[in-house]
């Protein structure tokens, strides 16, 4: 294989990072520009070219397909990504603050045995951490769906907000949400982000998604 063909094949491989719809429309012209800008004799994409392609592809995957003028959806998508980060921090905190939770539980129930504590961990805290992990996926998926004009993403998120509100209130009523202060702070922060997203997507106009 000659150098030019090898380089073209390598560029095509890196262009696979882009969303399919974008590739269908723009792969040929980006490839043309990449080849036109290549050094004579270049056989492989340079590191800076690879980084640029990957970073741009990531932006294309993450950013909303609505005009910037649709501020409500734009902000909601930004908040949803923020929510995913905070949710991940929450899941990590649940695991990292197990010691605090245990000492609070032991203070409240002095006769708690190790077996009973393990049952609390397996029955309540492990499902909570797993649910938080799944929720991270949900935040990201909703951000993508909302940014791509999927109407049901609004309904799905409103239901999610309702469920987490009930869960938070239930936890506060039972006192379990205040076993570790870090958990409570993150949980409240997350709920406020959810509230802001709901306000934006309920009050905002329907997104005008680019036809592509």
């Amino acid at each position, binding site marked *: 294989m000659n150098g030019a063909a090898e380089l073209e094949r390598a560029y095509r491989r890196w262009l696979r990072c882009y969303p399919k719809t974008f590739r269908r429309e723009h792969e*040929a*012209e980006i490839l043309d520009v990449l080849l036109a800008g290549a050094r004579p004799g270049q056989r492989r994409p340079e590191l800076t070219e690879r980084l640029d392609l990957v*970073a741009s592809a990531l932006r294309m995957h993450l950013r909303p397909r609505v005009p910037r003028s649709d501020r409500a959806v734009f902000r909601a998508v930004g908040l949803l990504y923020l929510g995913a980060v905070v949710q991940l921090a929450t899941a990590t905190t649940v695991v990292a603050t197990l010691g605090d939770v245990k000492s609070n539980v032991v203070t409240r129930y002095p006769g708690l045995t190790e077996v009973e504590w393990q049952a609390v961990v397996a029955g309540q805290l492990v499902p909570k951490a797993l649910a938080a992990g799944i929720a991270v996926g949900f935040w990201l998926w909703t951000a993508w769906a909302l940014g791509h004009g999927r109407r049901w993403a609004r309904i799905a998120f409103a239901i999610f907000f309702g469920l987490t509100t009930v869960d938070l209130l239930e936890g506060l009523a039972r006192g379990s949400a205040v076993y570790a202060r870090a958990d409570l702070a993150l949980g409240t922060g997350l709920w406020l982000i959810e509230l802001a997203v709901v306000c934006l997507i309920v009050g905002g106009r329907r997104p005008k998604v680019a036809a592509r």
Partner: protein
Amino acid sequence: MTKRAMQEATFLVLTALAAGSQHGYGILSDVVRISDGRVRLRPGTLYSALDRLRLDGLVSVDREEVVEGRLRRYYRLTPEGGRQLAAEAARLRSNAATAFARLGLAEGTTG
């Protein structure tokens, strides 16, 4: 609400298209010329910016050509793109004029 300043890459891409339609490689070369070699956009960054500008209605596809078996797509500024570029240029000129005045320099000199 205060309008956000335009990113430099966006400003340069719109400026490159202000005089007429251009294809991707033409825009990249023109951006280097406009910025006196200071800004060299990479193809990934350029197409990401063009995609955003098309979504925002500031740029549109003018025409397509096939040159030596390869697709060449030309982009042009929309009327809204022209308006936003003019507004940004006016903002930059006003800021620059203020800076020169406070430095006690004539506009366009660097001391």
